């Protein structure tokens, strides 16, 4: 009886400790409190929740499509609508709403042209051009953009063909196709009986534990080396890039590429993107000169935050302001003149 009482006391103490941590994590630390499965978009953030990035300090509200910002309303007659597609650099959960390049671009263009300009931030963590190709019909029908900016960054080729992503590109015979890979949480796939704990995943304490245990275990096994990337076969990068840009241009005829790079010189991969963009007549706005010019004159990096490390990770407020300038300049010179 005494032992049973002690066990009960232990369990109660553990439950209270978890509860306290739940409150702490939910309000201070939590990064991604789960999501919903959309039949079209795959796994998206829950509508209406507030997200806090691990970098930076801001909280961002998600709309019903799991994208940051307000609900997307039907386009008005006078409205010029620009759709921004990209990964976490575009979603920019690290930067507050009024400081993202998407928002700043809208303000700048509206001021410069006097027109009703609306930019839509469809940036999505972990996205790649495979997502934009696969979902092009959805974006056209639901958002009806006049112009599309597709953000591509230095290492985009791996996510395009990564079989563990929700949308990826694979080769079928001589042709490439996009594949929707709607997956359940990887833990359920690995250990289906564990599905019984699925309701608990909504809690931050369980979510973080389930996310971090495999990472820590993998690190432990690899003696601190980063976890290896699975599902990335050896492919002909030039071929994939060429197909990707050709398909994007055919899906979004009015488009340009925002090429995000922090490298001082052009890499082989960048040359491939540039070459294919030229081939298909796609404008490519490259950020190198603007980013490095700012660093040279101000000695402040355009990525990184005080709670991470300047010069690493996602673009910060400075970088977003520069991006907005680059894009505003592009629109004024080539699109809206």
């Amino acid at each position, binding site marked *: 009886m005494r032992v049973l009482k*002690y066990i009960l*006391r*232990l369990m*109660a*103490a*553990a439950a*209270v*400790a*978890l509860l*306290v*941590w739940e409150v702490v*994590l939910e309000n201070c*630390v939590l990064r991604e409190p789960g999501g919903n499965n959309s039949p079209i978009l795959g796994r998206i953030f829950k509508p209406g929740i507030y997200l806090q990035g691990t970098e930076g300090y801001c909280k961002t509200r998600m709309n019903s499509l799991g994208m940051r910002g307000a609900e997307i309303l039907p386009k008005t007659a006078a409205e010029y609508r620009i759709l921004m597609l990209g990964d976490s650099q575009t979603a920019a959960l690290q930067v507050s709403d009024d400081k993202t390049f998407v928002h700043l671009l809208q303000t700048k263009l509206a001021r410069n042209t006097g027109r009703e300009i609306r930019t839509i931030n469809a940036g999505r963590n972990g996205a790649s051009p495979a997502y934009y190709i696969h979902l092009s019909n959805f974006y056209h029908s639901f958002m009806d953009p006049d112009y599309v900016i597709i953000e591509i960054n230095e290492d985009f080729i791996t996510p395009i063909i990564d079989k563990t992503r929700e949308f990826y590109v694979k080769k079928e015979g001589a042709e490439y196709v996009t594949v929707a890979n709607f997956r359940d949480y990887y833990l359920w796939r690995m250990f289906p009986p564990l599905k019984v704990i699925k309701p608990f995943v909504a809690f931050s*304490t369980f979510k*973080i*534990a389930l996310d*971090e245990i495999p*990472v*820590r275990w993998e*690190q*432990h096994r690899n003696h*601190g080396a980063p976890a290896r990337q699975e599902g990335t076969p050896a492919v002909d990068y030039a071929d994939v890039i060429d197909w990707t840009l050709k398909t994007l241009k055919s899906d979004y005829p009015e488009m340009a590429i925002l090429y995000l790079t922090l490298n001082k010189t052009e890499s082989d991969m960048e040359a491939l993107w540039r070459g294919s963009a030229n081939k298909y007549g796609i404008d490519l706005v490259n950020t190198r000169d603007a980013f490095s010019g700012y660093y040279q004159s101000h*000695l*402040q*990096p355009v990525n*990184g935050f*005080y*709670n991470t*490390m*300047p*010069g690493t990770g996602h673009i910060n407020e400075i970088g977003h302001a520069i991006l907005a300038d680059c894009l505003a300049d592009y629109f004024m010179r080539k699109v809206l003149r």
Partner: protein
Amino acid sequence: MIFCSFEFLIFFMVILLLTIIIRQNKAKKLILLAGSCYFYAYWDYRFLPLLAGLSIVNYYTGSKIASTQVRAGKKRWLVASIVFDLMILGFFKYFNFFVGSINSLTLSSEIRLPSMDIILPIGISFMTFEVMSYTIDIYRGKNKPAASLLDLSLLVTFFPHLISGPILKPGHFLPQLDREITVRWNNVEKGTQIFLLGMVKKVLVADRLALFVDPVFKAPQDYGSGTVWLAVIAYAIQIYCDFSGYTDMAIGSAKCLGFEFPPNFNMPYISKSITEFWRRWHISLSTWLKDYLYIPLGGNRKGKLRQYMNLMIVMLLGGLWHGASWNFVIWGGLHGLGLMIHKLYSDHLRPRAFNSRPYACVSWLLTMAFVCVAWVFFRSTDFAVSFIIIKKMFLIGGIRGITWYATSLFVIVPVLIISHYLGLKLGDPPYVRYENTWGCFLLFFVLLGLFYLAPLNSSPFIYFQF
């Protein structure tokens, strides 16, 4: 194997369980010795003979010192043991350093001394100091020789202090082996709490600050003066939490097994002078240096000038003990200089009436600034980096650079100030009992916090390299 790892948890549970189950004291000692050897071999089994050699030679010479009646004969055995210990330390730790230093001094000469690929056995400095104090204490008549080779081997290899101390005094540890080794529940309660406190210091404070400190010290030229100052302050906190965290884990795990280790830190950053700092920082090392180096050199018994010189010699050697690099020598030299100046000031200049609060504040600030500047040499990889940092700190030749006000520092500093204040007020830390729900809650809360808040990439303990 490091304390904050899953392997250590399993290892420690097995050792604890065996120590509880086994009744015979000698068998318990054997288990602890075997476990300690496994603990060390987990890093590199090839150095186990070195541990055995240190134990056997010092046990033998210690017995000889005790049994020899003639003073000169005792001295010969003492010298033999010290020469052996210093040869081991010198070969593994300083051979390449001296060869490199001589080669750099004779750059113009054709003759180059060859260096060797020597692996530094972890904890070698701690082990050699312990066995040296063992034979010296027997020579001085302070201690008797260990009851058996097993006891001395345990002094050398006992896993909680094997790698990064604290440096155990034989007179403190060996008598504990004469008693029955007993695992008591209240010791386990206290021990686990001390261990967890150390883990919090290491994982939540030191490892998180490392994410700020490492990049700045790697490329200080890229950062602004304010950021460099913050990084130096952060390093001061990091090294304290890293090393004292390790010590707490050592003290805690030893306590669970029924052993008492002396404290190694006593809130060093509240010191108002360098002298006070060394009474509070790495106490086991400063005590060792005082007992076995400063006093034999004459201490304060041979006049003021000699005392100042002795302080400088002790600190230079203390710096060199930390690592075979001129940066450590400079760090030691700076502290020697600080001790000399403080001694000189206390002896001749300090007005007796100066005990006011503002005076205390200024003293604290100066001490902290001095300690922080000295840490620059301790942490930097070479002189070039040290001088870049010093120049940035003192606004010489350009203060511009990346501005990075690391959030972690602004969270940790207030926590540290509050905990030091509470430490001052409370004296001995309070412990909770696991019998009641409050105690269990705190235990789970800390364990979960370590899991949720720990950075994914843990840094190795800084003092492992010594």
